[in-house]
């Protein structure tokens, strides 16, 4: 019940869908259609897992008064306020500016700026790492850094000013050696994914069962 049934579901589901691909018949199509309509519903419930664990972690912090526990309220309050607000002003889901709502405000003016800023910080860290850590310590690292510099210059307008052919070298690296490397990685990763698919379908890889009691 606890391990065998899930392993069976995986195997039956996996093989069924795999075989389905090769059978265009209407019954096979019907299997596929119901899969397409069921999967999003199941996936929607999976969100409960995320919300639940987040609530648990932060409720725990607040209860134990762990370090910086006050901030946990900053997670929990908007977490539950957002869905409530969305249904007080259902129209706000449209994302338009014409009907302002708190829901839309929180998304557009707090979440969007914060998320956009988070990753832009990397620009600063890259500059710092460029100075303090990117070393041409071996022939290979040197090749990498040289290619990087050529591409960096070739991608910006200033590359054109250095020489007309300069960006062309950057493009050449992108279109040929880069493509060769990426294709080899893609093929390798493709086989890796396929092998993982098989391992999971046939129950060789069972790590996904973990964490919910034996």
């Amino acid at each position, binding site marked *: 019940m606890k391990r065998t049934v899930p392993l069976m579901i995986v195997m039956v589901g996996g093989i069924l869908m795999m075989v389905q691909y090769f059978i265009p018949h209407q019954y096979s199509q019907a299997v596929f259609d119901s899969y397409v309509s069921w999967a999003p519903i199941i996936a929607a419930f999976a969100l409960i897992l995320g919300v639940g664990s987040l609530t648990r972690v932060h409720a725990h912090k607040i209860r134990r008064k762990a370090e910086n526990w006050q901030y946990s309220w900053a997670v929990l309050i908007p977490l539950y306020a957002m869905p409530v607000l969305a249904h007080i002003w259902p129209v706000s889901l449209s994302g338009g500016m014409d009907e302002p709502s708190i829901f839309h405000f929180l998304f557009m003016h707090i979440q969007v700026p914060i998320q956009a800023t988070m990753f832009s910080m990397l620009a600063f860290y890259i500059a710092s790492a460029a100075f*303090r850590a990117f070393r041409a310590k071996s022939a290979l690292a040197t090749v990498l850094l040289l290619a990087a510099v050529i591409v960096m210059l070739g991608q910006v307008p200033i590359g054109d000013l250095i020489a007309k052919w300069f960006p062309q070298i950057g493009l050449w690296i992108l279109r040929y050696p880069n493509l060769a490397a990426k294709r080899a990685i893609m093929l390798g*990763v493709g086989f890796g994914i396929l*092998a993982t698919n098989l391992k999971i379908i046939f129950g060789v890889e069972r*790590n996904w069962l973990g964490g919910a009691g034996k």
Partner: protein
Amino acid sequence: MRKDWIGIPALGILLLLASFAAAQDAVEEMTQDADPRPGEMMEDTAGVEGTQLQPAVEGVPEEPGPALDVPGAITVEDKDNDAGDQLVVCFEPPADTSGVFAYNVYRRKAGETGEVSWNLVKIIPVLGPTLFIDGYDPEYPIEPGTRYEYRVASVSLEGEEYFGEPQVAQAVPAGELYHTGKTKVLIAGGLFIFLIFYYFGKAQRGRQMYLRPIAGIEAIDEAIGRATEMGKPVLYVPGLSTISDVATIASLTILGRVAKKVAQYQTPLMVPNRDPIVYTVADEAVKQAYLEAGRPDAFDPDSVFFLTDSQFAFVAGVNGIMMREKPATNFYLGMFWAESLLLAETGSLTGAIQIAGTDAVTQLPFFITTCDYTLIGEELYAASAYLGREPKQIGAVKGQDACKGIIMAFITIAFVLSILDMVADTETLEWVRRIVTVPIVD
């Protein structure tokens, strides 16, 4: 013994070659009846509607013109490789198309009567293709096993319709049990499954299988040794992803091996975690490793710990540890995102030996330029199979290698043939290439 993989790709090529003829026919058939989409036929249709149609339209007089010539015979065939919900319909255009603006194609179930039973299923511009696939319109689906009746009308610019003879379809839509256009995918998939299982079996029978040494793995022991000499701790970050990530799983296997060495050398170990589930598994793995090394007493329960689930806060935390404790060796193995750079930069400042490994291609360049050793992509998986010594995992690596062997053989052959084509002006490459060509449209 080690050479037997060579036979497999050869077998694969032979198998593929054998199926070549059959599959090729299927492909040709497929490409023929692939539906004519406006985008791909752009050159034709755009030209038609843009230029040629215009004069024809202007030439039509304002008042209702004389009766138009009507379309001729309609032929209906069942479409191959469908779920019985498509029919291939073809009609003869009228001999005289002057004044015709478009054709309206109507369909109803055979035997139905009355004008209302006709459904307009397709409008075709006058110079458009008179062969089309009916059944794509979700509003008027074709039901398998039903006989339909068609009629086509010439439509004048004013919208008046002049009907041709109705025609009961010569064929009934039926679903097929096998899609002939997918034979190559089937062969490739079957071959892949066969090879993986072949090596699973071999691995389980306890056959020793060779995997080439990987530079990063050999450096692991040495780096731990260095930390012992210096009397400083070892830091191990098992990535920031969840347990379902292949990279995390690989990392946890390697962690077991590192922990065992650390236990033997009696060097302190620190394993910060971002994911709660990964944390519990990592804790287990380290405990187990100390047990195996015969030093369960030396295990420090605080060595594996959960830091925080927020990405940047996690990095700030680990960087703090690096600056305070100055570990002699840092391992970053698993899945990393933007934080790779921040971790490796701080580590290089503290002068630690750094060994990294990830399958995140965008982060690899940063690791390569800042760390001493980097396991690139698949090397991480292979390393974990290598260190974990679980037979099936090694079997999977071997199976994938065999497939890569087939791919390499194909590319080599293609390269040779393209030289041949260039010198001898033949078309051999195209011939071999067709073996692996799969149709764009299913």
